[in-house]
């Protein structure tokens, strides 16, 4: 709770939090607030410019872009959440195990992580998504996979420090096994950093997932995914600028929102930078 109070006093955190709050509200209330159905086709009103009826204009099928963006927020936030949950969970577990056990386990796990990290993350995610077949769920898995090493490396570093703490030895003296110590002592003490990294990663995850959708490997039409909307809107960019611009702006806001919130969180939670 103290954390929240400090955060609310930090202007950039408040700005980031504010942007994200708007996004979350949009996602949750899309069903109530959106003026049109996201997949409602109205060919008589196709490619209309922004105006009173359609705030952000309409696309080539006459669907309202503002409504589609609102529903798209659901998809993007869901992607971000699942990617971070999967990557953060597995990565933290791998990192904690490697850092705590050390020796060949550490070596093996970290070399595997190095292999993953040595590919450009977007290229690897593309290859994986293409191999598994284009669908939103596969895109989420692919993005989560390339994010795992980030978490694993960071948590391993923390675990190396935590495992030397006397309470770990005290727990072993009390008869605890390795699994118990990793779950009860190592991971909870790394949680702060994981939260910070998760917030920072959310933005990246949304961006990469949108990129996959843009090249057709993620969300499939008629799903109102932001990246997919830009992909189609690209063809109309010269004459109907609004089609690709508004989804792009929302991706930008979301990613920036997560990044500045993550930075502010790090200032508050990370003991190494605490003043």
């Amino acid at each position, binding site marked *: 709770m103290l954390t929240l109070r400090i955060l609310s006093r930090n202007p950039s955190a408040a700005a980031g939090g504010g942007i994200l709050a708007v996004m979350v509200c949009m996602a949750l209330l899309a069903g109530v607030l959106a003026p049109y159905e996201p997949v409602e086709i109205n060919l008589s009103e196709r490619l209309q410019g922004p105006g009173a009826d359609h705030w952000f204009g309409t696309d080539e099928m006459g669907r309202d872009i503002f409504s589609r963006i609102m529903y798209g927020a659901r998809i993007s936030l869901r992607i971000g959440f699942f990617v971070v949950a999967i990557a953060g969970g597995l990565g933290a577990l791998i990192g904690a195990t490697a850092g705590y056990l050390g020796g060949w386990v550490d070596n093996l796990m970290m070399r595997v992580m190095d292999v993953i990290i040595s590919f450009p993350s977007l290229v690897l995610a593309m290859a994986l998504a293409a191999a598994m077949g284009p669908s939103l769920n596969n895109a989420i898995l692919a993005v989560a996979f390339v994010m795992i090493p980030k978490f694993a490396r960071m948590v391993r570093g923390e675990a190396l420090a935590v495992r030397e703490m*006397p309470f770990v*030895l*005290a727990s072993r*003296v*009390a*008869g605890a096994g390795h699994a118990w110590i990793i779950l009860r002592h190592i991971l909870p003490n790394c949680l702060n950093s994981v939260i910070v990294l998760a917030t920072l990663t959310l933005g990246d995850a949304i961006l990469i997932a949108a990129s996959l959708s843009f090249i057709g490997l993620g969300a499939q039409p008629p799903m109102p995914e932001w990246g997919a909307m830009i992909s189609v809107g690209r063809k109309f960019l010269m004459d109907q600028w609004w089609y690709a611009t508004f989804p792009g702006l929302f991706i930008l806001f979301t990613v920036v929102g997560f990044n500045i919130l993550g930075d502010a969180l790090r200032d508050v939670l990370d003991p190494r930078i605490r003043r």
Partner: protein
Amino acid sequence: MSKQLLDVQGLSVTFTTHQGTARVLEKVSLSLQAGEILGLVGETGCGKSVLARSILRLIPQPPGRIHEGRIMFQEKNLLKLSARAMRSVRGRCISMIFQEPLSSLNPVFTIGNQMREMARLHLGLGREAANEHCAAMLARVRLPDARGLLRKYPHELSGGQRQRVMIAMELSCGPQLLLADEPTTALDVTVQGQILQIIKEQAAQRDMAVLLITHDMGVVAQTCDRVAVMYAGVVVETATVADLFARPEHPYTQGLIAAIPGRERIQQLLTIPGTVPDLVTPPPGCRYHPRCVLRVKNCNRIEPELSTIGAQHAVACHLSAGKPQENWRRP
């Protein structure tokens, strides 16, 4: 003499370092009976903590290695137990408390959360029963408002309180042996007395043996029944407390006792000249001989054996072999 609870025989432990293999414990033998408090004294780095950790088999391997010897606890050789069997010995039969009460508790969980963990792990108690049990344990180490304390986090407690919580926690499963590794070094003197008193009381009430590791002769005099003096990985003298202070036999013990700051020596602190030897290449013969003011010609060639010179009094020194010593004073 009643049956031995713990009997360590000829225990040798080495650590591999970049400089070579350090012989950290060299044929250490000592024993403990139920209800007895044995003080283990010696300078920093003489292997006291390694001995305690070896008993629980918690020295990191590698670089550490238990070379030879046996650790008999309740007629079982702990060195031959499986990892799983060893885990059930830890905490249940043998417990240990550490020097740093400040960091021996996990900062992210409440006291109750951590104490219940032990009770549930070893005693199989349910949540409520575990709570009840922990509160009772805290009350026994004279911590008031045990129920409220269970909901607190470690940083809300003082050093003395934390050490008491540690003691309550380690005793909560009724161990027969408590290894206390300098439990009072990080605490101030008044709290130190209370903690020692609690350890002593609990040992008497539960007929529990305590191995009290310390470098403070004052603590030994206050608390222990018997003392073992270690120097550079070797036990050089064991005796009852009264005997040790009245008739210290080994020159090192005499030096230690002479170095206790006292009222009459307020002007000048006595020290033993020289430093602890390098354990990678320990001095030949008696490991203490380079610093010994009384050395004779055999000291640098023959390793003295620990030999009995009186009731419960044994010493490893060539000077004491056979002939009774005058009450020696430092020059």
